[in-house]
Structure formats: structure tokens, C-alpha cells
């Protein structure tokens, strides 16, 4: 396994440089929006770290799928997988290596974002407002972080199974949006059956429920349907798909 090679091969392209610059601008912008402007909007005049991180999850919900799908499926789309597999013919080893490299990028991105959220919350609360609130940090860990982890897992599964940048991005970004919308419609309809179907596919809600310790066996269903099954199918496809 060579995750260092996969990291470098992703980072040294012009597309990745543009993506990372745009991502940085978005993360800094949303962190500033959440942390610095919050005191002016909140009745108490405080800045709450949980609220700042909530703001940050908006761009991260787009950035994480884009980076993840590009890192796992990008080489299939631009055909450079041919050279990769000629130099590293162990296909499952290459796949594992890419997953590791993607996870490292995710961890760095999330750590940077949370650090930035804490900094802007402190600046906004202590220097510009009536105080910074950090006591809600467990909410960050039980609510926002699981949501981001769910986004990573689903994006990985889509990248692995679809092996196409376009299809992977459409699925990884579009499916959660469709499921959330379907959830709202199901609630409006009041149908238990439709609600259960949507719940069985709502990975993000299931992730938050499980992280809060309130999960049941049913909450594992989205993980099975949206992550485990596509990943297993994708690993099989990765191992046998012909190149060229």
C-alpha cells in the first residue's frame, strides 16, 4: 500500500490545486460567517461553537464528496488508472491505499475546520460579543461529526462502486439531497410505510442517532444499504474491471 503516492498524485494536479483553494476559501468564509457574525445575530450576543460548526457543515457536505470521489474514482475517468495499475498491479492494495489517503485528507480537513470554527467562535464571542460558548462541543461530536463521517462513507462507497467521477459526484451529492427531500414529503404525507423506507435510506440521520447512543438495529440499515453493499460490489468490480 502506498497512500503517500495516492496523496501526492491527487495533490499535484492543477484540478486539485484549484479545488483545494476554493475549498479553503469556502471553509474560511463559512467559519467567519458562523463565528464572527453570530454575536450580532444572537439575542445573548454570544458565539456558540456548535452553531459555527453547523455553518461549516454546509460547505463540507459538498467539499467532502468532491474530494472523496475524485480521489477514489478520478483515475478511472481520466484513464490514468492504467499507469497506476501497470506500476502497482495489486488492485485491492491500490484501492485500500486510496481509501486511506482519502481518510487522511478528510481528517485533516475536519480537524482544520473544527479548529477554525473554535478560533472564529472565540474571536467572535470574546473579542466582538458577550462571550464564547464551548460547552456545546459534545453536540459537535454527536451531531455534526457523525454527519460528516456519514458523508465520507457514502462518498467512498459511491466512488468505489461507480468508478466514474461524474456518476460518483451525482450520486454522492444528489442522493442525500433527494433522501432529505423525500423525508420531508413522507412526513407531510403521514405515511408510515414511506417514512420507514426513507428512514432505511437516511444515512445521515441514522449516523447522528447512532452517535447519540439512541440507535436501534433499524438504524444500521442505511449503513448496510448505502455503504456496505455498494462497497462490496465496488471492491469486486475494482478487482475484475478491465482497463483500456
Amino acid at each position, binding site marked *: 500500500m502506498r497512500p503517500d503516492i495516492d496523496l501526492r498524485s491527487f495533490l499535484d494536479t492543477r484540478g486539485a490545486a484549484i479545488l483545494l483553494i476554493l475549498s479553503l476559501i469556502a471553509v474560511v468564509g463559512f467559519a467567519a460567517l458562523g463565528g464572527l457574525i453570530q454575536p450580532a445575530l444572537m439575542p445573548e450576543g454570544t458565539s456558540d461553537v456548535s452553531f459555527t460548526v453547523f455553518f461549516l457543515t454546509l460547505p463540507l457536505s459538498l467539499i467532502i464528496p468532491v474530494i472523496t470521489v475524485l480521489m477514489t474514482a478520478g483515475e478511472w475517468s*481520466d484513464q490514468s488508472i492504467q499507469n497506476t495499475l501497470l506500476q502497482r498491479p495489486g488492485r485491492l492494495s491500490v484501492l485500500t491505499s486510496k481509501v486511506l489517503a482519502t481518510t487522511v485528507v478528510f481528517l485533516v480537513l475536519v480537524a482544520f475546520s473544527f479548529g477554525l470554527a473554535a478560533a472564529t467562535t472565540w474571536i467572535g464571542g470574546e473579542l466582538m460579543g458577550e462571550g464564547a460558548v464551548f460547552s456545546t462541543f459534545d453536540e459537535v461530536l454527536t451531531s455534526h461529526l457523525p454527519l460528516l463521517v456519514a458523508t465520507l462513507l457514502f462518498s467512498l462507497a459511491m466512488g468505489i462502486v461507480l468508478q466514474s467521477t461524474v456518476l460518483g459526484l451525482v450520486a454522492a451529492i444528489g442522493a442525500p439531497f433527494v433522501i432529505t427531500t423525500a423525508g420531508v414529503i413522507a412526513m407531510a404525507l403521514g405515511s408510515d410505510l414511506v417514512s420507514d423506507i426513507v428512514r432505511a435510506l437516511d444515512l445521515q440521520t441514522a449516523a447522528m442517532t447512532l452517535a447519540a447512543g439512541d440507535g436501534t438495529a433499524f438504524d444500521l440499515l442505511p449503513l448496510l444499504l448505502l455503504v456496505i453493499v455498494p462497497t462490496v460490489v465496488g471492491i469486486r468490480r475494482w478487482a475484475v474491471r478491465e482497463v483500456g
Partner: protein
Amino acid sequence: MTSTTPSASAGPTLEVRGVTKRYGARAAVDDLSFVCRPGTVTGFLGPNGAGKSTTLRILTGLARADEGEALVGGAPYRSLSHPARTVGVMLDARALHGGRTGLETLRLTARTVGMPASRADEVLEMVGLQGAGGKRVGGYSYGMRQRLGIGVALVGDPAVLILDEPANGLDPEGIRWMRRLLRSFADAGGTVLLSSHQLREVEATVDRLVVISQGRLVREGTLEELTSESGTRVTALDPTALRTALDKHGIAYEPRSETELEVSLVPEDMGRLALREQLVLTSLGASKGNGLEEVFFALTGQLEAPPAAAEAENQPAPAPIR
């Protein structure tokens, strides 16, 4: 000082043994066997769709054979511990990432295959791209991509080279450069297998030839053997019956005039065939040695002249002639 010669004194042998690959009902490669030995440049020839690229992909582990095996030094490509240090491969220059510079492409390859970063600069100079190393591959011409692709193949200092249509897009100077590169590589004990459509280029570069058609081997031998061997020029009282008999037995032929055919059989075998099919031959004789182009067209049943193209389309796959 740069090196294009393989590190090993004698490179591994490439061996394709009874390889068959089917896509649905169609056999892209059909029981194909041949060997490429160290110190030789082997040309892999065949018309479009003959199965050359499929064979090369099987040989390099990018596709799996349904039957048979393809070996590099006695082992499948995928089981080699450092494949890129043993075999340099260039199958498709478009497979290079367009968003990376030429130098970065080579540096990344060097790092992947465990070579020092300085090897990238060395190879960049070797392939004549030292002036374009900082330019993104997306802005390269096809010929420059071909050179870079060959450079990627050479980074690991391999003892074997497998190249698919390496001369495509190269200018005359580039073709001469490639010819020298492959010659010196083989002369130093390396093994080279290259496929190409550019028959005159192949003729000037290779020692041995493997000719396939419709996935099957139709001829294997040295360049001298193939080009010095004669086919047979034959005319018959009933030219239609002659063609029908040749088609029936899958023998490749090419019209030389309205009545005369050049057949890929020796005169003796042509005589036997005529006897068996009860054909009256009006002339039969060995033709003189041909150039590679004529040999290729005769062996693969492809016709060079447009007026005869319609007849060529109706020809079945030629029978192997060993």
C-alpha cells in the same frame, strides 16, 4: 550521461501460451501463442481489431485471459514484485494525467517504482522533452505524449519494453529516435515487443515478427524469414472456383491481376489443394520475396488496393501457417 539500456544483461522472456479471450460469443484472441526473447525487437502486427491491444493488456495484467497464460520471465505480470522495474509499458499515451507537468509525471513514476527523483530528469532528457518538463501534459501534442509515455516506461530502468503503437504521432526525427532507442535497448540484452501499423517503420526496427489476424496467429518468424519467403502466384481455368476453394480452407490471398492470385501457401501445398478441389491450374509458381507490406497483406487477407476491398471483406480468417 543518460542510459537507455536495460540494467540486466539479459532481459526476461515474454511468453504467450494458448491465450484465448472472448467478449460474448466473439473471440478477440483465439489460442494465441508466441515468445519474445531477450536481445530482440519483436513486431506485433495485425489489422485493426486483430486482438493486438487485448493481448498486450493480458500480458500486462490489465485484462484476464479466459484460457491460457501470458508470462514475463515465467511469471504473470501481476505477480511480479516490482513490475515497473522489470517491464516498461506504454499502451496508451492518453492515459497520462493532463493536469500534471511532464516532469512531475516522471517524478511521481520514479517515486512509485522506487527510483531516485534524479531519474526523472534523466529520462526527461532521454526522451527529448527537457524543454517541456514544466508544461502540463494536457498542453502536449500527441507526439510529445508518446515520448512522455515511453519515458514513463523507461523510468524503472526495465529489462523488457512493451509498447503499443509507439510511433503514432511522432515526427520523422522522433521515429528515428525511437528506432535507435529500441535497437540499443535490445542490443544490450533487453526484450522488446511493439505493436504498430506503420509497416515500413516496423521493417526498419524489428528482428522478429508475430502476425495475427482475428485473434489467431498467422505467422511468426524473423523478418528475413517472412520477407524472403515467397507466396505462390496462381491462375486457374475457373478463377471463381479457385477463390471459393481458398475461402473454404481459410487461405489468405490477394489478387495480382484479373485472373492471378497471390496465395499464402507454398506452390507444393497449392498444388495439393488444387488436386483435392479438382481445379485446373493454368499457372503456378513461387513469387519473389516481398516487402513487409506485401507479406502483411498476404498473411492477414487484407487488400491494399481499394478496388479489391470488397472481395477482402468476404475472406475468412486465414489458417495458421507454421
